[in-house]
């Protein structure tokens, strides 16, 4: 746990950075148009990649209470998207190319699940570190 206390914020930043970069590569290089839910998730992930980077650089955890809501809201949106896209609730679906993108890790884990895992793990790390 000692390692986690010291490097937790760094791990959270790495997750946020990889998520942001992958999202940009998917839209700008692989040419998958982000749907409205992807855009909402980006709104919550991109600031984390910057703020957590500064916190990791300064080794300063004081800003956690101010930013912990970002991964929580992002995770809720990602969970909602996961449910509507994977359980065929077409009426509530994004209707854009997210359904067609069809990038699935190990044949099961699609982009919304990956996004949920990223937000959830950042939230749990920040939640754990909030009183350190």
């Amino acid at each position, binding site marked *: 746990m000692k390692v986690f206390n*010291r490097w937790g914020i*760094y791990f959270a*930043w*790495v997750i946020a*950075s*990889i998520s942001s*970069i992958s999202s*940009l*590569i998917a839209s*700008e*290089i692989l*040419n998958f148009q982000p749907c409205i839910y992807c855009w909402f998730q980006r709104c919550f992930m991109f600031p984390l990649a910057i703020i957590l*980077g500064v916190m*990791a*650089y300064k*080794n300063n955890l004081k800003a956690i209470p101010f930013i912990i809501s970002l991964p929580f809201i992002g995770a809720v949106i990602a969970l909602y998207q996961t449910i509507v896209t994977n359980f065929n609730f077409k009426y509530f679906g994004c209707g854009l190319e997210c359904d067609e993108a069809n990038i699935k890790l190990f044949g099961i884990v699609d982009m919304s699940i990956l996004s949920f895992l990223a937000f959830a793990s950042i939230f749990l790390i920040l939640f754990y570190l909030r009183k350190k």
Partner: protein
Amino acid sequence: MKKDDNRIVVIVTAAVFILVTAVIYILDILMPKNFNNNYALSFGNENSKIKVFIFEDFKCKNCKKLSYHFTPVIKENYLDSDKINYNILPLSFVCGSKTIANAAFAVYQLNKNEFFNFLKKVSYEELESKEDIFKIVKELNGINFEIFKELVNKEVFNEYLDQNFSKAKEIMKKNFKVPAIYINGYLIDEENFSNVIEEYLAMDKKNESF
């Protein structure tokens, strides 16, 4: 000391992220684009190592210029002598171009040899209606007009146009333009076309002599 360790690790990680992103971006630009001629109007030598793919909308002004002035030269210099494989990928996003694109596919299917005559006429004249296109096709040789009319009226090639449009978006992304000329997967300007082809032909000859 501990704080400095953190800073170095964060800086190195950020540098790695930036480097990886830059490499992926540059590779995407430098790598040749993949094409197939499933939905193309394909001419020339299918086995040629020089493969040309052109996205065009038969109603756009620049495409018309290209088809009228440039395509006949290519046909004379490279297609009649079977030096290259030349593929036109018709698109349809200008108003009214769906009918011309369907007509182009129909002419290609019914008599491939008349296609370039059709293209020249279509690019020279201002076509307002289906009847104008039918009038042009009636003057062409070896085309069963009734079948042609049916193919155009039923717009049976719309699926091909959609596939080509998806491919064009995938390849050009935000730099979408027509006409767009690709030789062996690389985008080139119309002015450089002959030079690039000659370079490829020279390279091909060199390889053969080895």
